[in-house]
């Protein structure tokens, strides 16, 4: 087993660990959106490891469409419930791209293994990732700008938006790299992409399953702000009614 194999196993194993963390988090918080992120990581980890064990090179591509769909539904459930949104178009795009990737990467490759088919599959995969991640960046940035100056929103929540935007940019970079660079041997680029991938995954984990100490750290100024105003808010039921009925 070479270094390239170890790097590959590490990437997929980290994905499975993140999937378990996200599942635990989704159960604890009752957050529907996190199940879709779990789906993305779980399929990615399982299909990636299977691909590696069987040395197929095509199995991971099978899950592309499903991973796009998971991402699209994650964005929908996080940002766009109860409002007009383009989810349906991204969903249809994901299905079409998934089918194109399967056809060109697996079926055509099996019938007639031309490099052109792999190239078409890779380009489709890159475009799909760019579109989905760009939508995530747009949605997060829009929402962040909406709340940036709102003093009632915790600083750690604002930081979460920033982390999502940051890891989405790395996600685009990683997707382009995986689609264009051949990782059969270890070189500077392979190591660089490996580090970028692990960084992308860890930032994503940090954003969604943020440890308490980090939350407290990001929120250090906010806690001071709210604690000083707490006492005036604790009015009795009668006081509240009287105050609201006053002109």
């Amino acid at each position, binding site marked *: 087993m070479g270094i390239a194999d170890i790097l590959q196993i590490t990437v997929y194993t980290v994905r499975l660990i993140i999937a378990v963390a996200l599942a635990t988090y989704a159960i604890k918080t009752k957050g529907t959106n996190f199940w879709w992120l779990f789906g993305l990581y779980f399929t990615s980890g399982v299909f990636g490891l299977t691909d590696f064990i069987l040395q197929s090179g095509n199995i991971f591509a099978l899950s592309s469409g499903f991973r796009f769909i998971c991402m699209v539904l994650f964005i929908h459930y996080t940002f766009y419930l109860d409002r007009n949104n383009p989810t349906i178009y991204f969903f249809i795009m994901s299905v079409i791209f998934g089918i194109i990737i399967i056809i060109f990467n697996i079926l055509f490759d099996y019938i007639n293994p031309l490099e052109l088919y792999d190239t078409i599959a890779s380009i489709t995969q890159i475009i799909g990732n760019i579109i989905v991640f760009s939508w995530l960046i747009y949605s997060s940035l829009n929402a962040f700008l909406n709340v940036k100056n709102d003093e009632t929103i915790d600083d750690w929540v604002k930081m979460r938006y920033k982390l999502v935007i940051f890891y989405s940019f790395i996600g685009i970079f990683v997707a382009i790299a995986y689609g264009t660079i051949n990782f059969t041997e270890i070189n500077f680029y392979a190591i660089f992409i490996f580090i970028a991938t692990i960084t992308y995954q860890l930032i994503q984990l940090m954003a969604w399953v943020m440890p308490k100490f980090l939350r407290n750290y990001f929120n250090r100024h906010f806690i001071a702000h709210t604690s000083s105003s707490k006492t005036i808010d604790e009015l009795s039921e009668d*006081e509240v009614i009287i105050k609201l009925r006053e002109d």
Partner: protein
Amino acid sequence: MDFVNFLGPKLSALISKDVSPCKGLIRFAIRDACKNPNSLTYKDIIEIVNKELKIRLDQVNIPELDQVMSQLNKIIIKNQSVFTMSIY
């Protein structure tokens, strides 16, 4: 994130009353719904605002209640990600 702290000032601006009693009213609405204020989902918030909080606002004779409710819903829907992003 504290949903009461978030929505209190918005409700206060909509009905032109002090922030403190508005926060108090929201706190009572959450209590009426028998929900844990620390683990409210977006769906819980929409339900509480349109049921318990609406009843409470009606009880204190807030004028043009339907318009206030419509504005409150718009604010919550527009800021939906604040609730999904702030659960932990």
